[in-house]
Protein backbone atom coordinates (compact mmCIF):
# COMPACT_ATOMS: atom_id res chain seq x y z
CA UNK A 1 0.00 0.00 0.00
CA UNK A 2 1.19 3.49 -0.82
CA UNK A 3 0.97 5.84 2.15
CA UNK A 4 0.96 9.51 1.12
CA UNK A 5 3.84 11.63 2.44
CA UNK A 6 1.39 13.86 4.30
CA UNK A 7 0.09 10.96 6.38
CA UNK A 8 3.59 9.77 7.12
CA UNK A 9 4.47 13.19 8.47
CA UNK A 10 1.39 13.15 10.66
CA UNK A 11 2.29 9.70 11.98
CA UNK A 12 5.79 10.90 12.82
CA UNK A 13 4.41 14.00 14.57
CA UNK A 14 1.88 11.92 16.50
CA UNK A 15 4.52 9.45 17.55
CA UNK A 16 6.65 12.33 18.82
CA UNK A 17 3.96 14.24 20.70
CA UNK A 18 2.43 11.10 22.21
CA UNK A 19 5.84 10.33 23.67
CA UNK A 20 6.18 13.95 24.74
CA UNK A 21 2.87 13.64 26.62
CA UNK A 22 3.94 10.35 28.19
CA UNK A 23 7.00 12.07 29.71
CA UNK A 24 4.77 14.72 31.27
CA UNK A 25 2.33 12.13 32.62
CA UNK A 26 5.27 10.30 34.22
CA UNK A 27 6.73 13.57 35.61
CA UNK A 28 9.94 12.87 33.70
CA UNK A 29 10.33 16.59 33.32
CA UNK A 30 14.09 16.73 32.71
CA UNK A 31 13.64 14.39 29.75
CA UNK A 32 10.74 16.56 28.60
CA UNK A 33 12.88 19.70 28.78
CA UNK A 34 15.50 17.94 26.65
CA UNK A 35 12.97 17.78 23.80
CA UNK A 36 13.16 21.58 23.42
CA UNK A 37 15.58 23.15 20.95
CA UNK A 38 18.02 25.80 22.21
CA UNK A 39 15.70 28.48 20.81
CA UNK A 40 12.63 26.57 21.98
CA UNK A 41 9.74 28.18 23.87
CA UNK A 42 6.77 26.99 25.90
CA UNK A 43 3.72 29.23 26.06
CA UNK A 44 0.20 29.26 27.48
CA UNK A 45 -1.94 32.05 26.04
CA UNK A 46 -4.30 34.03 28.28
CA UNK A 47 -7.83 32.58 28.44
CA UNK A 48 -10.43 34.54 26.53
CA UNK A 49 -7.95 36.27 24.23
CA UNK A 50 -8.83 36.77 20.56
CA UNK A 51 -6.62 35.02 18.01
CA UNK A 52 -4.36 33.10 20.42
CA UNK A 53 -2.47 31.68 17.44
CA UNK A 54 -1.36 35.15 16.32
CA UNK A 55 -0.36 37.01 19.49
CA UNK A 56 3.16 37.54 20.86
CA UNK A 57 4.30 37.39 24.47
CA UNK A 58 6.31 40.56 23.82
CA UNK A 59 3.08 42.57 23.66
CA UNK A 60 0.42 40.43 25.38
CA UNK A 61 0.31 39.27 29.02
CA UNK A 62 0.41 35.48 28.64
CA UNK A 63 -0.24 32.97 31.39
CA UNK A 64 3.12 31.38 30.63
CA UNK A 65 5.74 32.65 28.19
CA UNK A 66 8.98 30.78 28.73
CA UNK A 67 12.01 30.95 26.52
CA UNK A 68 14.37 28.00 26.89
CA UNK A 69 16.18 29.69 29.80
CA UNK A 70 13.08 30.34 31.87
CA UNK A 71 11.72 26.92 31.02
CA UNK A 72 14.88 25.48 32.59
CA UNK A 73 14.13 27.50 35.73
CA UNK A 74 10.52 26.29 35.66
CA UNK A 75 11.69 22.67 35.53
CA UNK A 76 14.27 23.30 38.23
CA UNK A 77 11.59 24.89 40.46
CA UNK A 78 9.16 22.04 39.87
CA UNK A 79 11.89 19.58 40.88
CA UNK A 80 12.16 21.07 44.37
CA UNK A 81 10.12 20.04 47.40
CA UNK A 82 9.42 23.73 48.12
CA UNK A 83 7.43 24.15 44.90
CA UNK A 84 4.52 23.68 47.29
CA UNK A 85 1.68 23.55 44.78
CA UNK A 86 3.20 20.42 43.20
CA UNK A 87 4.71 18.97 46.34
CA UNK A 88 3.50 16.31 46.74
CA UNK A 89 2.97 16.08 43.01
CA UNK A 90 -0.40 15.85 41.36
CA UNK A 91 -1.43 13.04 39.03
CA UNK A 92 -1.46 14.24 35.44
CA UNK A 93 -2.88 12.72 32.26
CA UNK A 94 -2.55 14.32 28.84
CA UNK A 95 -4.84 13.27 25.96
CA UNK A 96 -3.97 14.52 22.44
CA UNK A 97 -6.26 14.02 19.46
CA UNK A 98 -7.32 15.46 16.06
CA UNK A 99 -3.71 15.99 15.03
CA UNK A 100 -3.38 18.07 11.87
CA UNK A 101 -0.16 19.01 10.12
CA UNK A 102 -0.59 22.60 8.98
CA UNK A 103 2.80 23.35 7.44
CA UNK A 104 5.75 21.23 6.46
CA UNK A 105 8.85 22.70 4.87
CA UNK A 106 12.27 24.13 5.46
CA UNK A 107 13.09 21.49 8.05
CA UNK A 108 10.16 22.55 10.21
CA UNK A 109 6.69 21.13 10.80
CA UNK A 110 3.79 23.03 12.35
CA UNK A 111 1.05 20.81 13.72
CA UNK A 112 -2.06 21.30 15.82
CA UNK A 113 -3.67 18.90 18.27
CA UNK A 114 -6.77 19.10 20.42
CA UNK A 115 -6.02 18.29 24.04
CA UNK A 116 -7.54 17.52 27.40
CA UNK A 117 -5.27 17.35 30.42
CA UNK A 118 -6.52 16.13 33.78
CA UNK A 119 -4.86 17.10 37.05
CA UNK A 120 -5.79 15.33 40.27
CA UNK A 121 -4.80 16.56 43.71
CA UNK A 122 -7.55 17.19 46.26
CA UNK A 123 -10.06 16.96 43.42
CA UNK A 124 -9.73 16.83 39.64
CA UNK A 125 -9.57 19.73 37.22
CA UNK A 126 -9.46 19.68 33.43
CA UNK A 127 -7.60 21.87 30.98
CA UNK A 128 -8.65 21.66 27.34
CA UNK A 129 -8.26 23.35 23.99
CA UNK A 130 -5.71 23.28 21.19
CA UNK A 131 -1.94 23.03 21.13
CA UNK A 132 0.35 24.26 18.40
CA UNK A 133 3.65 22.47 17.98
CA UNK A 134 6.41 23.96 15.89
CA UNK A 135 8.89 21.12 15.44
CA UNK A 136 12.37 21.21 13.98
CA UNK A 137 13.31 18.10 12.05
CA UNK A 138 16.37 16.46 13.60
CA UNK A 139 17.47 13.28 11.80
CA UNK A 140 14.66 10.79 12.28
CA UNK A 141 12.93 12.82 14.94
CA UNK A 142 12.07 16.33 16.08
CA UNK A 143 13.01 19.02 18.58
CA UNK A 144 10.36 21.40 19.90
CA UNK A 145 10.79 24.96 18.73
CA UNK A 146 7.49 26.12 20.18
CA UNK A 147 4.69 24.51 22.15
CA UNK A 148 1.79 26.93 22.46
CA UNK A 149 -1.18 25.87 24.58
CA UNK A 150 -4.43 27.69 23.76
CA UNK A 151 -7.25 26.84 26.13
CA UNK A 152 -10.95 27.04 25.26
CA UNK A 153 -11.86 28.75 28.50
CA UNK A 154 -12.76 32.34 29.36
CA UNK A 155 -10.99 32.37 32.72
CA UNK A 156 -9.18 29.94 35.02
CA UNK A 157 -12.48 29.13 36.68
CA UNK A 158 -12.56 26.54 38.14
CA UNK A 159 -9.00 25.53 37.23
CA UNK A 160 -7.52 28.34 39.34
CA UNK A 161 -3.92 28.01 38.21
CA UNK A 162 -1.55 26.30 35.80
CA UNK A 163 0.91 24.60 38.13
CA UNK A 164 1.54 21.55 35.95
CA UNK A 165 3.11 21.45 32.51
CA UNK A 166 0.30 21.36 29.95
Amino acid at each position, binding site marked *: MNIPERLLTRLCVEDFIFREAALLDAWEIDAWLALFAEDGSYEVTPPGVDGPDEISRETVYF*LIGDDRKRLEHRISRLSKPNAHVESPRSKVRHVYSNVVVAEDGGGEVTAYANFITFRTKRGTIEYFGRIRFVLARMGDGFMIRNKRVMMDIDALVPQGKVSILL
Partner: protein
Amino acid sequence: MGWDQPYESRFLSVDPAAQRFRVSRKCFADAAVFEEEKRKILYKSWLYLCHESEVAKVNDFFVREILDKELLVTRDAAGVNVFYNTCTHRGALLCRNKAGNRKAFGCPYHGWTFAPSGRVLTRNAEVGYRADVDADGAYSLVRVPRLEKRAGFYFINFDPDAISLDEFLGDAGDRIDILNEHTTDGLEVIGYHEYSINGNYKLMCENSYDGYHLMPTHASYFAYQKAMLEGLPQQAPGGFAISLTHGHAAVETDIVSGRPIAQWLPVWGEHARELIEARKVELEARLGATRAAQLGQTNRLMVIFPNTVMNDQQSIQIRSVLPVGYDKMITRAWLLGPKNEDKELRRVRLEGALSFLGPGGFATPDDIEMLELCQRGYAMGGVQWNDLSKGFEAGEETARSTSFWNNELHLRAYWTQYDKMMSA
Protein backbone atom coordinates in the same frame (compact mmCIF):
# COMPACT_ATOMS: atom_id res chain seq x y z
CA MET B 1 -7.15 54.53 68.68
CA GLY B 2 -4.41 52.51 70.32
CA TRP B 3 -4.40 48.97 71.70
CA ASP B 4 -3.80 49.47 75.40
CA GLN B 5 -6.70 47.50 76.89
CA PRO B 6 -7.72 43.86 76.41
CA TYR B 7 -10.54 43.49 73.86
CA GLU B 8 -12.86 40.61 72.98
CA SER B 9 -15.54 40.46 70.27
CA ARG B 10 -17.08 37.76 68.10
CA PHE B 11 -14.12 38.19 65.76
CA LEU B 12 -11.11 39.49 67.66
CA SER B 13 -9.27 38.59 70.83
CA VAL B 14 -6.65 41.18 71.72
CA ASP B 15 -4.44 41.16 74.80
CA PRO B 16 -1.88 43.96 74.54
CA ALA B 17 -0.09 43.01 77.78
CA ALA B 18 0.52 39.52 76.37
CA GLN B 19 1.33 41.03 72.93
CA ARG B 20 -1.37 38.82 71.45
CA PHE B 21 -3.72 39.67 68.57
CA ARG B 22 -6.01 36.92 67.28
CA VAL B 23 -8.73 36.68 64.63
CA SER B 24 -11.57 34.17 64.71
CA ARG B 25 -11.60 31.57 61.94
CA LYS B 26 -15.35 32.15 61.74
CA CYS B 27 -14.47 35.15 59.59
CA PHE B 28 -13.36 32.71 56.88
CA ALA B 29 -15.50 29.64 57.34
CA ASP B 30 -19.00 30.56 58.45
CA ALA B 31 -21.82 31.08 55.94
CA ALA B 32 -23.86 33.25 58.32
CA VAL B 33 -20.91 35.51 59.08
CA PHE B 34 -20.36 35.90 55.34
CA GLU B 35 -23.98 36.99 54.77
CA GLU B 36 -23.62 39.53 57.56
CA GLU B 37 -20.35 40.70 56.03
CA LYS B 38 -21.95 41.27 52.64
CA ARG B 39 -24.57 43.44 54.30
CA LYS B 40 -22.30 45.36 56.65
CA ILE B 41 -19.07 45.61 54.66
CA LEU B 42 -19.15 44.62 50.99
CA TYR B 43 -22.36 46.45 50.05
CA LYS B 44 -21.24 49.51 52.01
CA SER B 45 -17.60 49.88 50.91
CA TRP B 46 -15.97 51.29 47.80
CA LEU B 47 -15.16 48.42 45.46
CA TYR B 48 -12.79 48.55 42.49
CA LEU B 49 -14.55 48.71 39.14
CA CYS B 50 -12.02 49.47 36.40
CA HIS B 51 -9.29 51.67 35.02
CA GLU B 52 -10.36 54.49 32.71
CA SER B 53 -8.36 52.98 29.81
CA GLU B 54 -10.87 50.10 29.68
CA VAL B 55 -13.54 52.52 28.41
CA ALA B 56 -11.25 55.05 26.75
CA LYS B 57 -13.41 56.00 23.76
CA VAL B 58 -17.01 57.17 23.52
CA ASN B 59 -19.34 54.13 23.17
CA ASP B 60 -16.75 51.71 24.61
CA PHE B 61 -18.38 49.24 26.99
CA PHE B 62 -17.76 46.10 29.00
CA VAL B 63 -19.72 43.81 31.30
CA ARG B 64 -18.33 42.90 34.73
CA GLU B 65 -19.76 40.84 37.59
CA ILE B 66 -19.23 42.26 41.06
CA LEU B 67 -20.62 40.40 44.07
CA ASP B 68 -24.13 39.27 43.09
CA LYS B 69 -24.52 41.89 40.35
CA GLU B 70 -23.76 41.90 36.65
CA LEU B 71 -22.86 45.43 35.63
CA LEU B 72 -22.77 47.16 32.25
CA VAL B 73 -20.12 49.87 32.11
CA THR B 74 -20.34 52.34 29.23
CA ARG B 75 -18.82 55.62 28.13
CA ASP B 76 -20.95 58.27 26.47
CA ALA B 77 -20.03 61.85 25.57
CA ALA B 78 -20.64 62.90 29.19
CA GLY B 79 -18.45 60.26 30.82
CA VAL B 80 -18.50 56.80 32.34
CA ASN B 81 -21.74 55.11 33.43
CA VAL B 82 -22.33 51.94 35.38
CA PHE B 83 -25.71 50.21 35.10
CA TYR B 84 -27.28 47.00 36.26
CA ASN B 85 -27.16 44.89 33.08
CA THR B 86 -30.88 44.15 33.01
CA CYS B 87 -33.54 45.49 30.65
CA THR B 88 -35.86 47.88 32.49
CA HIS B 89 -38.86 46.36 30.67
CA ARG B 90 -38.98 42.69 31.70
CA GLY B 91 -35.54 42.07 33.08
CA ALA B 92 -33.55 40.01 30.57
CA LEU B 93 -29.79 40.45 30.69
CA LEU B 94 -29.28 43.26 28.22
CA CYS B 95 -25.72 43.05 26.93
CA ARG B 96 -24.41 39.57 26.24
CA ASN B 97 -21.02 40.55 24.86
CA LYS B 98 -18.09 40.97 27.22
CA ALA B 99 -16.69 44.18 25.76
CA GLY B 100 -16.63 46.33 22.64
CA ASN B 101 -17.78 49.64 21.18
CA ARG B 102 -21.45 50.15 20.52
CA LYS B 103 -23.95 53.00 19.98
CA ALA B 104 -26.94 51.05 21.27
CA PHE B 105 -27.81 48.03 23.38
CA GLY B 106 -30.80 46.02 22.19
CA CYS B 107 -32.69 43.68 24.48
CA PRO B 108 -33.21 40.36 22.67
CA TYR B 109 -36.61 39.70 24.30
CA HIS B 110 -38.96 42.55 23.19
CA GLY B 111 -36.49 44.72 21.33
CA TRP B 112 -36.11 47.61 23.76
CA THR B 113 -32.99 49.55 22.88
CA PHE B 114 -30.83 51.73 25.11
CA ALA B 115 -28.14 54.31 24.45
CA PRO B 116 -24.75 54.18 26.24
CA SER B 117 -26.19 56.99 28.40
CA GLY B 118 -28.87 54.53 29.58
CA ARG B 119 -31.80 56.34 27.85
CA VAL B 120 -34.45 54.31 26.02
CA LEU B 121 -34.05 54.85 22.27
CA THR B 122 -36.90 53.08 20.53
CA ARG B 123 -40.03 53.02 22.66
CA ASN B 124 -42.35 55.82 21.56
CA ALA B 125 -45.83 56.64 20.32
CA GLU B 126 -45.34 54.72 17.07
CA VAL B 127 -45.08 51.43 18.96
CA GLY B 128 -47.84 52.01 21.51
CA TYR B 129 -46.26 54.11 24.24
CA ARG B 130 -46.83 57.76 24.98
CA ALA B 131 -44.47 60.07 23.14
CA ASP B 132 -41.14 60.67 24.83
CA VAL B 133 -41.78 57.79 27.19
CA ASP B 134 -38.41 58.10 28.92
CA ALA B 135 -38.57 61.88 29.44
CA ASP B 136 -38.32 61.51 33.20
CA GLY B 137 -35.75 58.71 32.98
CA ALA B 138 -38.16 56.19 34.49
CA TYR B 139 -37.37 53.66 31.74
CA SER B 140 -33.65 54.34 31.57
CA LEU B 141 -31.13 51.73 32.65
CA VAL B 142 -30.68 51.80 36.40
CA ARG B 143 -27.40 53.06 37.75
CA VAL B 144 -25.34 51.60 40.55
CA PRO B 145 -25.78 54.17 43.34
CA ARG B 146 -22.24 55.54 43.40
CA LEU B 147 -19.39 55.79 40.90
CA GLU B 148 -16.28 57.87 41.63
CA LYS B 149 -12.69 57.86 40.47
CA ARG B 150 -9.22 58.58 41.77
CA ALA B 151 -6.26 59.07 39.42
CA GLY B 152 -8.00 57.18 36.62
CA PHE B 153 -9.19 54.26 38.81
CA TYR B 154 -12.98 53.91 39.10
CA PHE B 155 -14.66 52.54 42.21
CA ILE B 156 -18.33 51.85 42.90
CA ASN B 157 -20.40 51.74 46.05
CA PHE B 158 -23.84 50.16 46.38
CA ASP B 159 -24.62 52.34 49.39
CA PRO B 160 -26.11 55.69 48.29
CA ASP B 161 -25.22 57.24 51.66
CA ALA B 162 -21.56 56.19 51.67
CA ILE B 163 -18.85 58.76 52.31
CA SER B 164 -17.05 59.99 49.18
CA LEU B 165 -14.33 57.87 47.60
CA ASP B 166 -11.66 60.46 48.45
CA GLU B 167 -12.70 60.52 52.09
CA PHE B 168 -12.82 56.71 52.18
CA LEU B 169 -9.35 56.39 50.65
CA GLY B 170 -7.90 58.95 53.05
CA ASP B 171 -4.15 58.41 53.39
CA ALA B 172 -4.25 55.71 50.70
CA GLY B 173 -5.26 58.26 48.05
CA ASP B 174 -1.75 59.61 47.56
CA ARG B 175 -0.47 56.09 47.03
CA ILE B 176 -2.97 55.73 44.17
CA ASP B 177 -1.99 59.11 42.74
CA ILE B 178 1.63 58.05 42.60
CA LEU B 179 0.77 55.08 40.37
CA ASN B 180 -0.52 57.55 37.85
CA GLU B 181 2.76 59.49 38.04
CA HIS B 182 4.73 56.71 36.35
CA THR B 183 4.15 58.62 33.15
CA THR B 184 2.68 61.84 31.84
CA ASP B 185 0.83 59.91 29.13
CA GLY B 186 -1.40 58.04 31.57
CA LEU B 187 -1.61 54.34 32.29
CA GLU B 188 -3.33 51.60 30.33
CA VAL B 189 -4.42 48.06 31.07
CA ILE B 190 -1.96 45.72 29.36
CA GLY B 191 -3.29 42.35 30.37
CA TYR B 192 -5.67 40.48 32.54
CA HIS B 193 -5.86 37.22 34.48
CA GLU B 194 -8.91 35.80 36.19
CA TYR B 195 -8.75 32.74 38.41
CA SER B 196 -10.73 31.00 41.09
CA ILE B 197 -9.47 29.84 44.48
CA ASN B 198 -11.19 27.56 46.96
CA GLY B 199 -10.81 29.92 49.86
CA ASN B 200 -12.36 32.94 51.54
CA TYR B 201 -11.55 36.17 49.66
CA LYS B 202 -9.90 37.75 52.70
CA LEU B 203 -7.18 35.11 52.50
CA MET B 204 -6.08 36.60 49.18
CA CYS B 205 -6.27 40.16 50.56
CA GLU B 206 -4.00 39.17 53.46
CA ASN B 207 -1.63 37.30 51.17
CA SER B 208 -1.28 40.17 48.69
CA TYR B 209 0.67 42.37 51.13
CA ASP B 210 1.96 39.83 53.59
CA GLY B 211 5.75 40.15 53.73
CA TYR B 212 6.10 37.44 56.34
CA HIS B 213 5.17 34.56 54.00
CA LEU B 214 7.58 35.51 51.21
CA MET B 215 10.62 33.44 52.13
CA PRO B 216 8.88 30.27 53.36
CA THR B 217 6.26 30.17 50.60
CA HIS B 218 8.35 31.48 47.72
CA ALA B 219 11.86 30.12 48.34
CA SER B 220 11.69 28.41 44.94
CA TYR B 221 10.88 31.74 43.27
CA PHE B 222 13.69 33.52 45.07
CA ALA B 223 16.15 30.88 43.85
CA TYR B 224 15.15 31.91 40.32
CA GLN B 225 15.24 35.60 41.25
CA LYS B 226 18.76 35.21 42.62
CA ALA B 227 19.92 33.84 39.29
CA MET B 228 18.30 36.81 37.51
CA LEU B 229 20.00 39.31 39.84
CA GLU B 230 23.44 37.80 39.39
CA GLY B 231 26.00 40.53 38.86
CA LEU B 232 23.98 43.11 40.78
CA PRO B 233 24.55 44.05 44.43
CA GLN B 234 22.20 42.04 46.62
CA GLN B 235 21.11 42.74 50.14
CA ALA B 236 18.14 42.01 52.34
CA PRO B 237 15.50 44.65 51.58
CA GLY B 238 14.69 47.31 54.11
CA GLY B 239 11.23 48.78 54.39
CA PHE B 240 8.13 49.17 56.49
CA ALA B 241 4.48 48.31 56.87
CA ILE B 242 2.17 51.27 57.35
CA SER B 243 -1.43 51.31 58.48
CA LEU B 244 -3.49 53.99 56.77
CA THR B 245 -7.01 55.18 57.51
CA HIS B 246 -10.23 53.06 57.22
CA GLY B 247 -8.37 49.73 57.36
CA HIS B 248 -6.23 50.40 54.30
CA ALA B 249 -2.54 49.64 54.65
CA ALA B 250 0.63 49.29 52.64
CA VAL B 251 3.97 47.57 52.74
CA GLU B 252 6.86 49.45 51.16
CA THR B 253 10.26 47.87 50.68
CA ASP B 254 13.38 48.33 48.64
CA ILE B 255 12.92 46.74 45.25
CA VAL B 256 13.86 43.09 45.13
CA SER B 257 13.41 42.34 41.43
CA GLY B 258 13.58 43.88 37.99
CA ARG B 259 11.32 46.83 37.21
CA PRO B 260 11.06 48.50 33.82
CA ILE B 261 11.15 51.89 35.51
CA ALA B 262 14.16 51.78 37.80
CA GLN B 263 15.74 48.36 38.24
CA TRP B 264 17.48 46.73 35.32
CA LEU B 265 18.22 43.01 35.14
CA PRO B 266 21.28 41.72 33.27
CA VAL B 267 19.16 39.17 31.36
CA TRP B 268 17.24 42.07 29.81
CA GLY B 269 20.32 43.21 27.87
CA GLU B 270 22.18 46.52 27.38
CA HIS B 271 19.50 48.26 25.33
CA ALA B 272 16.97 47.84 28.14
CA ARG B 273 19.57 49.15 30.60
CA GLU B 274 19.91 52.44 28.74
CA LEU B 275 16.14 52.85 28.48
CA ILE B 276 15.60 52.14 32.16
CA GLU B 277 18.31 54.59 33.19
CA ALA B 278 16.73 57.23 30.97
CA ARG B 279 13.36 56.60 32.67
CA LYS B 280 15.01 57.13 36.04
CA VAL B 281 16.49 60.46 34.95
CA GLU B 282 13.11 61.56 33.57
CA LEU B 283 11.35 60.65 36.81
CA GLU B 284 13.80 62.60 38.94
CA ALA B 285 13.57 65.65 36.69
CA ARG B 286 9.77 65.56 36.71
CA LEU B 287 9.02 64.60 40.31
CA GLY B 288 12.12 65.46 42.33
CA ALA B 289 14.44 62.94 43.96
CA THR B 290 12.20 62.01 46.90
CA ARG B 291 9.01 61.34 44.96
CA ALA B 292 10.98 59.64 42.17
CA ALA B 293 12.54 57.24 44.68
CA GLN B 294 9.16 56.62 46.30
CA LEU B 295 7.80 55.74 42.88
CA GLY B 296 10.75 54.10 41.18
CA GLN B 297 12.83 52.53 43.93
CA THR B 298 10.02 51.23 46.11
CA ASN B 299 8.20 47.93 45.99
CA ARG B 300 4.70 48.86 47.15
CA LEU B 301 1.95 46.47 48.19
CA MET B 302 -1.34 48.04 49.24
CA VAL B 303 -4.76 46.76 50.16
CA ILE B 304 -7.72 49.10 49.98
CA PHE B 305 -10.19 47.70 52.49
CA PRO B 306 -11.98 45.39 51.98
CA ASN B 307 -10.94 43.72 48.70
CA THR B 308 -8.87 45.87 46.34
CA VAL B 309 -5.16 45.23 45.94
CA MET B 310 -3.00 47.89 44.29
CA ASN B 311 0.55 46.66 43.97
CA ASP B 312 3.55 48.20 42.28
CA GLN B 313 6.20 45.51 42.00
CA GLN B 314 7.57 44.05 38.75
CA SER B 315 4.75 46.02 37.21
CA ILE B 316 1.61 47.76 38.42
CA GLN B 317 -0.98 45.14 39.23
CA ILE B 318 -4.52 45.76 40.48
CA ARG B 319 -6.46 42.89 41.97
CA SER B 320 -10.16 42.84 42.71
CA VAL B 321 -10.77 39.90 45.02
CA LEU B 322 -14.41 38.85 44.86
CA PRO B 323 -16.16 36.33 47.07
CA VAL B 324 -18.32 33.73 45.37
CA GLY B 325 -19.33 32.27 48.74
CA TYR B 326 -17.66 32.16 52.12
CA ASP B 327 -15.16 29.53 50.94
CA LYS B 328 -14.65 30.43 47.27
CA MET B 329 -13.33 33.49 45.50
CA ILE B 330 -12.47 34.81 42.09
CA THR B 331 -9.41 37.02 41.71
CA ARG B 332 -9.27 39.43 38.80
CA ALA B 333 -5.84 40.86 38.17
CA TRP B 334 -5.02 43.63 35.70
CA LEU B 335 -1.51 44.48 34.67
CA LEU B 336 -0.99 48.18 33.94
CA GLY B 337 1.82 50.15 32.39
CA PRO B 338 2.42 53.52 30.76
CA LYS B 339 0.63 54.28 27.51
CA ASN B 340 3.02 54.61 24.56
CA GLU B 341 5.65 52.63 26.46
CA ASP B 342 8.83 51.82 24.56
CA LYS B 343 8.50 48.36 22.97
CA GLU B 344 11.57 47.04 24.70
CA LEU B 345 10.42 48.28 28.12
CA ARG B 346 6.99 46.75 27.53
CA ARG B 347 8.66 43.45 26.69
CA VAL B 348 10.70 43.40 29.90
CA ARG B 349 7.67 44.56 31.90
CA LEU B 350 5.72 41.55 30.66
CA GLU B 351 8.66 39.25 31.31
CA GLY B 352 9.06 40.44 34.89
CA ALA B 353 5.36 40.18 35.60
CA LEU B 354 5.00 36.76 34.00
CA SER B 355 7.74 35.12 36.01
CA PHE B 356 6.40 36.09 39.43
CA LEU B 357 2.79 37.16 39.26
CA GLY B 358 -0.13 35.35 37.80
CA PRO B 359 -1.60 31.88 37.98
CA GLY B 360 1.09 30.43 35.68
CA GLY B 361 4.03 32.23 37.30
CA PHE B 362 6.64 30.98 39.75
CA ALA B 363 4.94 32.40 42.84
CA THR B 364 1.15 32.82 42.61
CA PRO B 365 0.41 29.07 42.25
CA ASP B 366 2.16 28.47 45.57
CA ASP B 367 0.16 31.31 47.14
CA ILE B 368 -3.05 29.74 45.87
CA GLU B 369 -1.98 26.42 47.36
CA MET B 370 -1.38 28.07 50.76
CA LEU B 371 -4.78 29.80 50.73
CA GLU B 372 -6.55 26.55 49.90
CA LEU B 373 -4.67 24.74 52.65
CA CYS B 374 -5.75 27.46 55.11
CA GLN B 375 -9.40 27.16 54.07
CA ARG B 376 -9.24 23.41 54.63
CA GLY B 377 -7.69 24.01 58.01
CA TYR B 378 -10.56 26.32 58.96
CA ALA B 379 -13.25 24.01 57.56
CA MET B 380 -12.38 21.20 59.97
CA GLY B 381 -13.38 23.35 62.95
CA GLY B 382 -12.18 22.63 66.48
CA VAL B 383 -9.62 25.45 66.44
CA GLN B 384 -10.88 28.94 67.07
CA TRP B 385 -8.10 31.45 66.36
CA ASN B 386 -5.63 32.69 63.78
CA ASP B 387 -2.67 34.60 65.21
CA LEU B 388 -1.54 37.98 63.86
CA SER B 389 0.73 39.05 66.73
CA LYS B 390 4.03 39.48 64.88
CA GLY B 391 5.49 42.82 65.96
CA PHE B 392 2.51 43.63 68.19
CA GLU B 393 3.21 45.81 71.19
CA ALA B 394 0.91 47.34 73.78
CA GLY B 395 -0.23 50.79 72.70
CA GLU B 396 0.03 50.08 68.96
CA GLU B 397 -1.99 52.58 66.97
CA THR B 398 -4.32 50.96 64.43
CA ALA B 399 -3.99 53.76 61.88
CA ARG B 400 -1.06 55.92 60.80
CA SER B 401 1.46 53.66 62.42
CA THR B 402 4.50 51.88 61.03
CA SER B 403 6.39 48.69 61.74
CA PHE B 404 9.05 46.52 60.08
CA TRP B 405 7.82 45.31 56.68
CA ASN B 406 7.47 41.66 57.57
CA ASN B 407 5.54 42.29 60.77
CA GLU B 408 1.74 42.00 60.80
CA LEU B 409 0.76 45.58 61.68
CA HIS B 410 -1.07 46.13 58.39
CA LEU B 411 -3.05 42.90 58.79
CA ARG B 412 -4.11 44.02 62.27
CA ALA B 413 -5.29 47.30 60.74
CA TYR B 414 -7.40 45.36 58.23
CA TRP B 415 -8.98 43.19 60.89
CA THR B 416 -9.58 46.09 63.25
CA GLN B 417 -11.62 47.81 60.53
CA TYR B 418 -13.42 44.53 59.81
CA ASP B 419 -14.33 44.13 63.46
CA LYS B 420 -15.46 47.73 63.70
CA MET B 421 -17.87 47.42 60.76
CA MET B 422 -19.12 43.98 61.73
CA SER B 423 -19.69 44.95 65.36
CA ALA B 424 -21.57 48.13 64.46
